[in-house]
């Protein structure tokens, strides 16, 4: 009897203490496609977090974490689903860091993540539609929903005393969702939207679109498009005909190439892009540069997404998605000791010791509602032909 008890005790201890294992995280991003210039640094940032955890040797009794990359293509849902399926069934990843664009993220969530019960943390899918998607508690994102960006832009417009605006958006899920969010927020706060018209990307001539926008009028023109695409064409045509002088630029329009292409005429325009002035952002930038990564848009969010997955595993004492999915919100939010980038080892130790942590990370992560970032935005002002930071919201 004594022996049996001992043996039982030994087996239970073994299962709780957990053997060191090789944990795999699928890094599914659009390495080819329209945002391929961003995904390189995004994946490297996520892998930086994994390396940090592996080197610390403190995750689940010294487990190592390796990244398995898969290409989401950003636009092709079938290809993204196939890539995710491969990672889950053949590479046996424990969780997915991704995907990047809203459309493919939704497809992977429904077809692969829910079917196999795998946790997904997206660093950059911003469509408001994902907030209400069925996810069985498996989907999180470190990027804010565009519903939040609409509120921020509406606040900026009211602060600047703008009474009426015209909106033009790129004709896809991102543009339409963002335009609707801006319109509903702004109208709720008493502003007037004179027209909300779509434009197609990749055309040479936008004079007809600008003609209609100009006739509707408005103090400023909100351009919810892409900076290398139709968004630039609309701005150029508006300036040429004298239809609008000031433009509001949401995140798809923020980049160095736009002020460079348009020139000084863009001075005085303003916009928003996800970002924080938290200490975490600085620390992350320094760490990333030291590791040879050039941080770009959504790199910090990628680091945070990977970090949250691993911290939640530690908190649950298991690398299985079913076990740790409920822990992600816990490690991301207060109460607990605040954790900055580069302190993942310390965080793992604290969790192992049974203490609470509040992961702040590179983007001041605060998960709300169905598991998405509350959203911190950088207000951009174009000045002297450059994007400058006016303030943080």
């Amino acid at each position: 009897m004594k022996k049996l008890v001992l043996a039982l005790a030994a087996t239970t201890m073994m299962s709780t203490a957990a053997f060191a294992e090789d944990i795999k995280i699928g890094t599914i991003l659009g390495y080819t496609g329209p945002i391929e210039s961003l995904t390189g640094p995004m994946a490297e940032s996520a892998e930086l977090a994994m390396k940090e955890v592996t080197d610390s040797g403190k995750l689940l009794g010294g487990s190592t974490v390796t990244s398995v990359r898969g290409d989401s293509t950003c636009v092709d849902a079938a290809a993204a689903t196939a890539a995710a399926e491969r990672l889950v069934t053949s590479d046996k990843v424990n969780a997915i860091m991704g995907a990047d664009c809203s459309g493919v993220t939704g497809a992977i969530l429904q077809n692969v993540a829910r079917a196999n019960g795998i946790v997904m943390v997206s660093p950059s899918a911003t469509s408001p539609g994902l907030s209400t998607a069925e996810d069985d508690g498996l989907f999180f994102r470190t990027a804010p929903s565009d519903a939040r960006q609409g509120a921020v832009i509406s606040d900026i417009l009211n602060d600047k005393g703008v009474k009426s605006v015209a909106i033009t958006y790129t004709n896809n899920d991102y543009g339409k969702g963002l335009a609707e969010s801006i319109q509903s927020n702004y109208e709720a706060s008493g502003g007037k939207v004179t027209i909300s018209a779509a434009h197609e990307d990749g055309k040479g001539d936008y004079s007809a679109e600008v003609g209609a926008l100009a006739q509707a009028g408005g103090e400023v023109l909100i351009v919810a498009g892409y900076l290398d695409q139709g968004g630039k064409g609309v701005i150029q045509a508006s300036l040429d005909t004298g239809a609008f002088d000031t433009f509001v630029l949401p995140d798809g329009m923020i980049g160095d190439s736009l002020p460079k292409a348009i020139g000084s005429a863009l001075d005085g325009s303003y916009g928003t892009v996800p970002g924080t002035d938290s200490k975490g952002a600085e620390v992350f930038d320094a760490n990333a540069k030291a590791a040879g990564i050039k941080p770009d848009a959504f790199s910090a969010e990628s680091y945070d997404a990977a970090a949250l997955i691993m911290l939640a595993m530690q908190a649950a004492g298991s690398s299985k998605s079913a076990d740790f999915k409920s822990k992600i919100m816990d490690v991301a939010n207060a109460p607990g000791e605040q954790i900055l980038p580069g302190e993942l080892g310390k965080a793992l130790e604290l969790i192992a010791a049974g203490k609470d942590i509040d992961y702040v990370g590179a983007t001041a992560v605060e998960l709300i509602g169905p598991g998405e970032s509350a959203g911190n935005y950088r207000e951009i002002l174009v000045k002297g032909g450059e994007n400058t930071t006016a303030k943080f919201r």
Partner: protein
Amino acid sequence: MDILNAFVLLFNFVVIPGLTYGCQLALGALGVTLIYGILRFSNFAHGETMAFGTMAVILFTWLLQGWGVSLGPVPTALLALPVGILCAILLLLVSDKLVYKFYRKQKSTPVIYLIASLGVMFFYNGLIRFVIGPDDRIFTDGERFIFTARQFKEATGLEQGMSFKMTQGITVFVTVICVAALFWFLTKTRTGKSMRAYSDNEDLALLSGINPDRVVMIAWILTAALATIAGTLYGLDKSFKPFTYLQILLPIFAAAIVGGLGSPLGAIAGGFVIAFSEVFVTFAYKRVLGYLLPESLEPSGLVQLLSTDYKFAVSFAILVIVLLVRPTGIFRGQSI
């Protein structure tokens, strides 16, 4: 004063952009119509020919800019235009020798030519992306405006501004010169007359001793020149992106068919019909009416007939109507 304001408004947003776009379409449609008249097929590779010529112009413009050559207020690209035209001529003559000549010997039907030109289009497509890439290129330099909306307002004291871009001015000017030169060539010179004869009746032309190879060669040369000029003007006014040249092929064909395929005069008329109908139908007349009507009648809506999303639909609706009512086009070209 209100009437003046309404006119200025219309000019700024409808007439000037429509005029410029019409000129660009007309030059493109002239090339299509020439090939149709002489070689009797719809050349689908025309949009890519425009892109290829423009690409050559851009490359030479960069070289000139590197040497520090400039034309002052006028874009340097105009100086590079002859080189671009030469490159396009070379390309078209080589494709004629390698591809179309074979089908001429076979006396193939127009449909076979058309499919062959589709293949040629894809080849040009790849060639252009191989040389200059798929990205947006801006190669305009010099003065941007002849006068800006603000200058116009200050000079006239009107409420509404009107701007006139340098590239718009150049487009109209160059188009007038090209069209005049082309018509002079077709009606006054011996070669031009032989081309028209060949187009009207091939057998009679051959009997009267017109050399068909020469006529075909000159048709390609003229087409290359027109395509390069049209493409460069379009690129200067907007920006050069290979993909947009594939798209502009549709309105160009619409223009050529509406005007009457094979009729140069029709190509020009068709270009302007398509361009103006696109802007006129999708323009919002709210403010124009606001100036013209008494205050009590001022419209509260946008007074827009069709959303700008349907811009392309307009030119195709016109195309369908013309084909139904008058299949030969406005100027009685060949029916297809």
